[in-house]
């Protein structure tokens, strides 16, 4: 992340902390025994100090550090607050605010006097109660010195000679004596109120906003469609532009950088690697790529799973790596790239890869497929079995991976946001998982079509082609239907057949998928097929009539129909009708599930 951006985030947080401190101090002044306020102040100052030190803002960190010391003692009950102290504490807080403001405009605020004053307060407060004041003071001063040193190290090289001199000249200030220039204009500064340039907004509010914009977009479509029939299209161009600008702005507000998630993996990789006694280097790329916050949240667990797997199962131990002529240190790369409406996140390891033959054995053991069937599949197809529910290729369950959360859960999460997951593996060289995720959940392009006088939509991310074939070129094979598309044999199904069913039992009828096909008598009849690709399988959905391609806003179905089969959600069309969005994954699962295939 860029330095400037970090600074902005720090400032936003610091200003927020500053305001909270002001509120809490006022609260504490009214009631000196308010433990909650004391705790909160301690916590806030601690965070502020930590952030400031990490950013190298030594002034904020140093004053923060002293305040923290004071409150640490108050918290422990070692010192009690008096009204007199409060004036000084408020001044210290004001100073802190001033310094934060100073960071913003890159202006140094003198602070050593305040620091000295706080030290005196600390000493006096303690002295009033106990006589071991020196001891406490020393430890605090020792810490203070350490802090100063570390900060000094950070700053070394950055400061010009004149600045160093200025700093040095500030040192010999007698304790407890305020510097004239520091305190003279206090009154002016107090009356100045600063506002952060950032606003924190709960995600729920953004969701509401997005829903409203979605409805507006639907209304817009409706009005424009009406206008078009009256021949007044030009009137609406402005409306069209403003609403779509608004829509994209709201979507933009929800975007966060993938770095927000990626950076958490430094720690995760380190921890897992140390448990497994492996050496792993994590490399992050494309952290500035932006993606919808909710998408990132939904797939975050899956990402953790993938990365943990990569460390514990992908990367080999150091000895094994040496034996195989690799560097001792394994490498995991998290890479984000942007591709139109999609963000592609890749988890790349240079470990041992996945052994297709091991998977074959496992698949047969777990009875996920017959030995004949699995033998006929290519290695690439075999590897995809790791996404099947109930499949876990590891022989030993470790504390890191294999706690019942399988790759099927990862796939489910990716499916849930309308994404796709792919796996490339080369035995001995490594594995790449690539997740193709929609950058925004709100709007997706979809193809609309009609079955039984009802509109349905399927996301364009699934569709490969739209073809029209004669009835005679569709053939019955087993319980299903097939046709040829670009020299490939693809499964064809009349969506009408499964949509007409009322119960799950009807779905098991072996003749089900032939029903509509048999009703068509003319062998020359044209049949419209939408070819979709799910998990690299091609399926042709037969539809009654194709409508158009359209941007839709998909909403999940609520209770009580939230689990409706074959449907992932619904959208409202310009004419006010509800249009169901097909869940191509679920239909594919139904078609290729062993229960049905064996009938």
């Amino acid at each position, binding site marked *: 992340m860029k330095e400037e951006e970090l600074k902005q985030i720090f400032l936003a947080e610091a200003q927020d902390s500053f305001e909270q401190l002001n509120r809490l101090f006022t609260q504490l002044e009214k009631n000196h025994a308010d433990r909650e306020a004391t705790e909160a102040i301690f916590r806030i100052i601690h965070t502020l100090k930590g952030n400031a030190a990490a950013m190298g803002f030594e002034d904020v960190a140093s004053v923060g550090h002293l305040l923290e010391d004071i409150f640490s003692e108050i918290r422990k009950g070692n010192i009690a607050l008096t009204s007199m102290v409060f004036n000084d504490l408020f001044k210290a807080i004001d100073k802190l605010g001033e310094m934060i403001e100073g960071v913003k405009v890159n202006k140094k605020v003198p602070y050593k006097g305040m620091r000295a004053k706080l030290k005196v307060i600390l000493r006096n407060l303690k002295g009033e109660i106990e006589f071991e004041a020196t001891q406490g003071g020393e430890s605090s001063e020792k810490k203070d010195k350490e802090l100063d040193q570390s900060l000094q190290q950070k700053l070394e090289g950055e400061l010009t000679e004149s600045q160093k001199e200025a700093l040095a000249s500030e040192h010999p200030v007698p304790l407890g004596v305020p510097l004239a220039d520091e305190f003279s204009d206090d009154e002016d500064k107090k009356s100045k109120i600063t506002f952060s340039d950032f606003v924190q907004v709960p995600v729920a509010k953004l969701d509401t906003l997005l*829903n409203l914009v979605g*409805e507006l977009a*639907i209304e817009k479509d409706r009005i424009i469609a009406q206008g078009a029939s009256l021949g007044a299209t030009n009137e609406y161009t402005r409306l069209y532009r403003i609403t779509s600008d608004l829509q994209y702005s709201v979507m933009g507000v929800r975007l966060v950088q993938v770095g927000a998630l990626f950076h958490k993996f430094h720690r995760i990789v380190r921890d897992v690697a140390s448990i497994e006694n492996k050496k792993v280097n994590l490399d992050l790329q494309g952290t500035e790529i932006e993606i919808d916050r909710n998408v990132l949240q939904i797939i975050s667990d899956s990402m953790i799973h993938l990365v943990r797997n990569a460390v514990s199962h992908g990367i080999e131990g150091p000895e094994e790596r040496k034996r195989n002529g690799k560097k001792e240190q394994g490498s995991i790369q998290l890479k984000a790239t942007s591709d139109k409406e999609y963000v592609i996140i890749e988890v790349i390891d240079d470990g041992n890869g996945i052994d297709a033959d091991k998977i074959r054995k496992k698949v047969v053991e777990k009875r996920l497929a017959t030995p004949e069937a699995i033998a006929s599949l290519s290695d690439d197809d075999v590897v995809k079995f790791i996404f099947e*529910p109930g499949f876990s290729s590891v022989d030993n369950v470790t504390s890191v991976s294999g706690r019942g959360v399988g790759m099927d859960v990862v796939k489910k999460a990716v499916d849930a946001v309308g994404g796709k997951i792919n796996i490339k593996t080369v035995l001995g060289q490594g594995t790449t998982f690539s997740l193709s995720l929609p950058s925004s959940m709100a709007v997706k392009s979809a193809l609309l079509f009609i079955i*039984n006088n*009802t*509109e349905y939509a399927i996301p364009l991310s699934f569709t490969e082609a739209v073809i029209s074939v004669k009835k005679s070129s569709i053939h019955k094979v087993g319980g299903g239907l097939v046709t040829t598309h670009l020299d490939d044999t693809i499964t064809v199904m009349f969506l009408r057949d*499964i*949509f*007409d*069913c*009322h*119960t*799950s039992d009807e*779905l098991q009828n072996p003749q089900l998928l032939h029903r509509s096909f048999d009703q068509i008598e003319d062998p020359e009849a044209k049949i419209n097929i939408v070819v979709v690709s799910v998990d690299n399988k091609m399926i042709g959905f037969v539809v009654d009539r194709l409508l158009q391609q359209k941007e839709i806003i998909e*909403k999940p*179905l*609520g*209770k*009580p*129909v*939230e*689990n*409706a*089969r*074959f*449907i992932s959600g*619904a959208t*409202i069309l310009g004419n*006010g*009708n*509800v*249009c*169901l969005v097909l869940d191509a994954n*679920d239909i594919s699962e139904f078609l290729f599930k062993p229960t049905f295939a064996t009938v």
Partner: protein
Amino acid sequence: MNVEEPSNASPSREERIAEAVDMAKVTIDDEQEKKSNIIVFRLGEEEYGLRIDQIKEVVITPRITKIPLTPSYVRGVANIRGNILAIIDLEDKFSLNNTINETSGYTLVVESHEFNMAILVKDVPNTLSVADADIDYTPAVVTEMHGEQDYINGIIKIEDRLIILIDIFKIITKDDLKTVLGSKI
């Protein structure tokens, strides 16, 4: 309770809706007397009632989109004020004679954060203010009905009318809906 009135409705409907609104207002005023406001509607040949706080509004039934593989009493989903609601046909659910016409009837939108649903009814429902004394919570009568007792709250008897007071959430949380819909993992 709001009553929506689309522009294409006939004046007689408007009047009836206005009447219903007025009644609702009047009955709310009377609340001090320990009375319950009940929305009363006809299903088959019987009168059914729902407590007013379970209903958000009454609208003219919008176009319904069928959902595959749902029980027949789930007629589908419809767009009501930008929300996608499941439309429930209680006549089908209670195996009563079908009197509701999907294209000319009304829909009661259920007030709930959890459920997005609405109930089909034939006419604009009436609002009735019922004294608690008139509600007969008689489990002895209702337990004899096959497993339906848990969503029947009681029986309201006023003059010679008999109104079955039901709890809409108990109907929907019953397991039968879940098992059919939950076939997807």
